[in-house]
């Protein structure tokens, strides 16, 4: 531990002596204090939160994320390039200890800077909230500065039904040759699946859709416990329009059931509070949405985000700390990535590779498109007859490799994106200890572990004396 600690303190000293930490600290504080001054909010609780939470936390994450990559690439690659690593590696210290010491050093710096930036954000929220109107302040503390748990209706697994229908219908509709075409079969199943989903989602005029949600925690709710329904629906006519909707919350026929008619806009999330006593004793909550006949247009409640129950679970400060802990978790992965790149590349190449990878990660939509189309080269386009065969084979080969790589990348991106605390914090959603543990398990133990293992093995096997000092 003494040796690892020496490397940790060396990393800190480098950041301090090269004034990097001071520059970053000033930049972060300026960002947190300056952004709300430059971008004016609309005086509402949500507007304030949007700027203070979403913008500043995003800016903090971006600044510290880039600094983490820069620092992690630099601290190892420069030591190798400038030959100081030759002095360290000839001492009785394992290479993995050097690697780990560098990582811990960077994470120590990140912890200090994130604590400073987070503390400043929190202070700014308290300061700015005092300038809101009383009503908005109430909304702020009821809906935003709070840790709210979320419960959605479990999405039904449609696959058994899809398979059953396919087995029944396919022999009648497809030829023997078509039954061998995997793409065609997949398309056929997709149509059946969409038909079932439509049946679950569409509420025709004069009809009602019922949700049953199970919230075990509701058994302990006091009568004034904050519970909110978050809803979103669309209309078959498309566009953004307002429609009257009838909402019934609570057990049907029960005296605690509440009924309300609300004029709501499509394609927008709406939140409205409901009494805590609408839950049944076992924590079940029944919600009904009726599409009045006069609407003359079907409404569509999406399966994934149509209805959600939010209730107070923890204080904002605890939620905020957990949110910062997840951001810290991201930095750990970035630091591991930077160190891994620096384990076998020069500083400039490692930094370029990591930043390039980040850009790819941020363009997840392109990856999705490529995977959906199953090709990098797009559909259509014709080549000259002589070159067509060769070119097609090359393209197919590239597609096979790249679709696989993109698939893995997208899988990682989506897994990491699931743990985005900024949106949760700005919408007052609770980040649970379980989510936090899963984030660390996934990003540190799984992705970080794989990345670190590759980095440490590469660094351990690397010849450190091939670089020439530039000092």
């Amino acid at each position, binding site marked *: 531990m*003494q*040796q690892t600690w*020496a490397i940790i303190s060396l990393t800190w*000293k480098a950041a301090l002596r090269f004034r990097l930490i001071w520059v970053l600290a000033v930049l972060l504080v300026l960002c947190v204090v300056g952004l709300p001054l430059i971008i004016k909010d609309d005086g509402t609780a949500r507007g304030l939160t949007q700027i203070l939470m979403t913008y500043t936390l995003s800016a903090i994450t971006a600044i510290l994320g880039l600094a983490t990559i820069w620092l992690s690439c630099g601290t190892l690659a420069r030591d190798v390039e400038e*030959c*100081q690593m030759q002095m360290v590696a000839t*001492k009785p210290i394992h290479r993995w200890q050097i690697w780990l010491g560098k990582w811990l050093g960077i994470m120590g710096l990140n912890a200090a800077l994130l604590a400073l930036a987070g503390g400043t954000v929190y202070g700014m929220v308290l300061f700015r909230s005092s300038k809101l109107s009383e009503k908005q302040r109430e909304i702020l503390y009821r809906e935003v500065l709070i840790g709210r748990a979320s419960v959605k209706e479990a999405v039904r697994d449609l696959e058994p039904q899809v398979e059953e229908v396919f087995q029944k219908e396919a022999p009648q509709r497809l030829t023997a040759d078509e039954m061998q075409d995997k793409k065609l079969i997949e398309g056929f199943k997709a149509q059946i699946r969409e038909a079932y989903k439509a049946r679950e989602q569409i509420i025709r005029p004069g009809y009602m859709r019922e949700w049953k949600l199970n919230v075990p925690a509701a058994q302990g709710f006091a009568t004034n416990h904050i519970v909110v329904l978050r809803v979103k629906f669309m209309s078959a006519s498309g566009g953004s329009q307002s429609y009257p909707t009838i909402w019934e919350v609570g057990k049907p026929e029960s005296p605690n059931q509440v009924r309300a008619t609300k004029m709501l806009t499509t394609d927008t999330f709406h939140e409205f509070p409901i009494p805590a006593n609408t839950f049944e004793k076992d924590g079940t909550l029944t919600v009904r949405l009726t599409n009045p006949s006069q609407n003359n247009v079907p409404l569509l409640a999406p399966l994934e985000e149509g209805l959600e129950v939010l209730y107070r679970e923890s204080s904002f400060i605890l939620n905020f700390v957990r949110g910062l802990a997840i951001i810290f978790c991201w930095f750990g992965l970035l630091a591991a990535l930077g160190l891994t790149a620096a384990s076998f590349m020069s500083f400039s190449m490692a930094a370029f590779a990591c930043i390039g990878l980040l850009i790819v990660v941020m363009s997840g939509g392109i990856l999705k498109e490529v995977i959906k189309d199953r090709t990098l080269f797009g559909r259509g386009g014709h080549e000259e007859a002589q070159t067509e065969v060769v070119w097609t084979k090359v393209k197919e080969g590239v597609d096979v490799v790249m679709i696989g790589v993109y698939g893995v990348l997208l899988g990682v991106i989506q897994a990491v994106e699931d743990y985005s605390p900024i949106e949760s914090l700005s919408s007052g959603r609770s980040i649970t200890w379980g989510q936090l543990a899963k984030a660390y398990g996934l990003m540190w133990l799984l992705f970080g572990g794989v990345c670190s293992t590759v980095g440490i093995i590469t660094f351990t096997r690397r*010849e450190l*004396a*091939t670089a020439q000092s530039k000092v």
Partner: protein
Amino acid sequence: MTAIETLNRGSGGQPSTETVISVRGLVKVFKDFWGRPKARAVDNVSFDVRRGEIFGLLGPNGSGKSTTIKMLLGLLHPTKGHIEVFGKSPRDVATKSRIGYLPEESYLYRYLNCHETLDFFGNLFQLPDGERQKRAEQLLEMVGLNQTRTRVVGEFSKGMQRRIGLAQALINDPDLVILDEPTAGLDPIGCREVKDLILALAQRGKTVILSSHLLADVEDLCDRVVIYYGGKIQADGTLKELLTERDSMRITTPPLSQETMQRVLEVIRKDVAEDKIHVDNPTQNLESYFLGVVQRARAAGETSGATSGHHVAAYLQSGGEGKSPSQADKMLERLAAPQAVATPTISNQTAPAAPAVDATKLAALTQSQPPLQSVPTSTTELKIDLSKANEKLSGMLGGDKK
């Protein structure tokens, strides 16, 4: 077991038969990005280094010395061949606790000061806090940097960086010290001090590997050398084996009268042809001359320059701190004294290419020559210098000032 303990068991600081480093059929081929051979830096090299000896790697720039050293340290991997250091692979981490390494350039962290540098490397050797601080202080004192302990290494001159580099190489009291061009960038006084230190280390049972293209350094210090050229060993052996000219002899005496000289020559001419006899005054080398001048000036208090002449760190001394000088120390005092006087080359160095004997020159040689004003060549001055140098070395080595 440390080298000091080993030495105190009675090796007396002489090279033993115990092999510290064994190199067999070593080949290193550097390859380009595509894996194609680019340069054959080391080509089928084999040698052994025994405990307690100063082993020299000699050769011109790019001959493969540093590459060999880096393979010994595990920083480069051999393409072929086998290396053992203390009987283990050079990449064995535990073995590295017995090695001190000074690279050919200062590869220190530029933002750390002297004390932090030694503290950092001391931590890598897992030295306890108190011991680390004590050694750092002693080493800074030894290399003459105790006045600049808070200055960052990046501000240092090359010579000062060399000194702190040497200090870090000794922080762990190593059994094997690998020094790559240790005197590069040092002033003559610094060179002499480093050379004296290397001798002191060897006499205390440490094994020293010295890589240099400075012939004087190697000649002054090494027991055995290998001479590299083009990645291959061109010659190896003890300096005596390599340098002795067995087909000629030299007799050194105080100045003789012309008659005596003639008589001696007459006797010699009976066996040796006239054109094979050379008579000349021995000369000292420039280093000896320079050190003599500086020492005289220092004695007269005429310098305010860099400090020097500090004590060897107590923990590096045989028997440790507070103990009486061991047999090895005493032997070291005796053996090292002539080196420290800066006159070891007086009898070894000759003027280049003396012409055959002629009567005029012989007459000139046999005349008694008055000593030059500033050159410490008279018997009286030589004695003074000897005593001062002896005193200095004794101080450095922590022994009696005799």
